[in-house]
């Protein structure tokens, strides 16, 4: 599955350095491992005691709040779209980024299509697994598709209401 990350001018396909660990597989002593939420719950202490980075793959029904105390110890969280039309992971993403201040890689998996890329970026995703042809090109353009946004989200863009306030204040002064 091609993995995309945003680069400065274009979206790049990158190698995925993470090892996706099956729930019954032994945990390697080092290296980057991605575990399920169930495995994380069961072996949290052992996983954190390892030398290598750890990531957690959440289903869209897993309680994202459970990761809150550990966000600074995680390097990857994957959020899953079972279908592109199932939007629960957008809320999980915003909570991770906005409320729990998670700084690591936030990856979208599953039904990841180019026409959703702009929404995903706004919710704080920064990596995408997509099989869709043309996804990389679309991702590169997704931040500039709309020059205006109407609501604050996790991409730091100032919504139109704030720009208007600034403009009025500038005009007044």
């Amino acid at each position, binding site marked *: 599955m091609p993995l995309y990350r945003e680069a400065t001018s274009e979206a790049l396909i990158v190698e995925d350095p993470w090892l996706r660990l099956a729930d019954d597989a032994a945990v390697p002593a080092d290296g980057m491992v991605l575990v399920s939420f169930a495995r994380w719950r069961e072996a949290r202490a052992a996983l954190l005691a390892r030398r290598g980075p750890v990531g957690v793959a959440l289903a869209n029904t897993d309680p994202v709040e459970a990761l809150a105390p550990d966000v600074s110890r995680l390097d990857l969280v994957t959020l899953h779209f079972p279908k*592109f*039309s199932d939007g*629960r992971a*957008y809320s999980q993403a915003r909570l991770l980024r906005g409320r729990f201040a998670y700084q690591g890689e936030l990856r979208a998996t599953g039904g990841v299509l180019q026409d959703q890329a702009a*929404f995903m970026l706004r919710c704080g995703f920064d990596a995408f697994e997509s099989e869709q042809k043309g996804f990389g090109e679309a991702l590169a353009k997704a931040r500039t598709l709309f020059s*205006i946004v109407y609501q*604050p989200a996790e991409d730091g863009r100032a919504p139109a209401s704030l720009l*208007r306030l600034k403009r*009025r204040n500038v005009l007044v002064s």
Partner: protein
Amino acid sequence: MPDTHFYRYDDYDRSLVSERVDQFRDQVRRRLAGELTEEQFKPLRLHNGLYLQLHAYMLRIAIPYGTLSSRQLRKLADISRKYDRGYGHFTTRQNLQLNWIKLEDAPDALAALAEVDMHALQTSGNCIRNVTADHFAGAAVDEIEDPRIWAEIVRQWSTLHPEFTFLPRKFKIAITGSPNDRAAVRVHDIGLRLWRNAEGEVGFEVIVGGGLGRTPMIGKTLREFLPKNELLAYLEATLRVYNRYGRRDNLYKARIKILVHEVGVEKMRADVEAEYAETRDGLLGLDNETIEAIARQFAPPELPPRPERVSAVEALKLVDRDFALWLKSNVAPHRVKGYAIVTASLKPAGAPPGDASAVQMEGMADIAEAFSQAELRVSHEQNLILPHVAVEDLPTVYVALGRLGFAEANVGKITDIIACPGLDYCALANARSIPVAQQISNHFASLARQHDIGDLKIKISGCINACGHHHVGHIGILGVDKNGVELYQISLGGDVDFGKTALGTILGPAVTADKVVDAVDSLVGTYLDTRAAGERFVDTFRRIGAEPFKDRMYAAL
């Protein structure tokens, strides 16, 4: 004089809408080139208002809070002529539907809309839909505050909201600023009612989980009083709870009303308040300057003083009985003395409810320009409103509306029927709605008789999805299909008036299409024979119950 007395787009709004047209043009191109499957394309076109109906694509154009300028209505007429068959259908959600759009023309139609600061964004799909509001807003005598200010604030916040574009199901918000609710706030996913508390502050009662469809429910109060500047943060908290926990396993159980019903309103409230506690101090708090800047755009027009009592009007009343009836049913008091709110009935006898031709739309635009500050409203009862007409001009407006066929004195009466498009257009319908409405309308065409019968709301849906709101009709008619035969189930006693909101009681077995008029006639007969002085149809029903109506109706069939 500015073009409008409601929200005017600035360069930000215009950029967004025009960039959206460009994006959709590219999506249509990819669909036509086979790069997108229909499954992938479907939500994209739905988010731009494009449905696939029985015979063709249908474009549902947003008319936010039902407010239109003459210029905008002329453009709608143009678009209907150029890209459709020269007519459109005003809907119960204050939108306009064009029923014969070609996919390859849709981007051009949207670009034409953008020229007059309009769009078809989020008029379908599982997102926050076009926000509706009281159609008398800004003109009503009983108004506490213009609900459109808040509808516009919600419109902007909900437009292309990155978190809430793939909700479990569609999400409808309605706002009223008057104690007499004309926006049906108890039958929406979220209803907002502005009211003044004991301290004299104005805030929102937030109502959640109402709705019609196959599982009709009356909304419950989530928050008794919400300070106005907290509106968006509170809505975001509510939508987040719904997005995370609303059911997605069954299309028919995915609306927020099912979530509220299953977890109970107390648990829903606790979840929303817990979420809200985390978000309330965030960036969604509304500062006064932002609210006031939007409120200024809705500042009422300066209406020059005009006489309250006009002898010509009084004289015409005496000689023209239809005009007198029209004043009673189609003209409502205005907050400014010397003015009135006029409802143009899009239900002339025998016509499909809510339809208007391009010529009629242009005619309405002209009348509004000459007599109503170039402003119109679409009501959820599928009529057009002229919000600011001088009493002195009423005779002229009456004649002008009459030329268009829109001066029928039947607003709120038995022929002011709400009906969905039904099997004539809709892929979901089980039965036809429009022909049934037309038959009833023809049968009760006499204005004197209609006024004798008084206020009576008939609402007709062609299937269980209830787009014709049959659950809340005084008489509700639901089309069902039984082994390929169209049958109609009749219910009584539904109501959307605030404080009296009720769902209708089904009378008994469904009747065949040719018996619907007889059935309605019998129900009316029972009412006329039984009513106490001053009682409306629905009042009599509440007093005597369903049995007398039912017995006589089935005996007559």
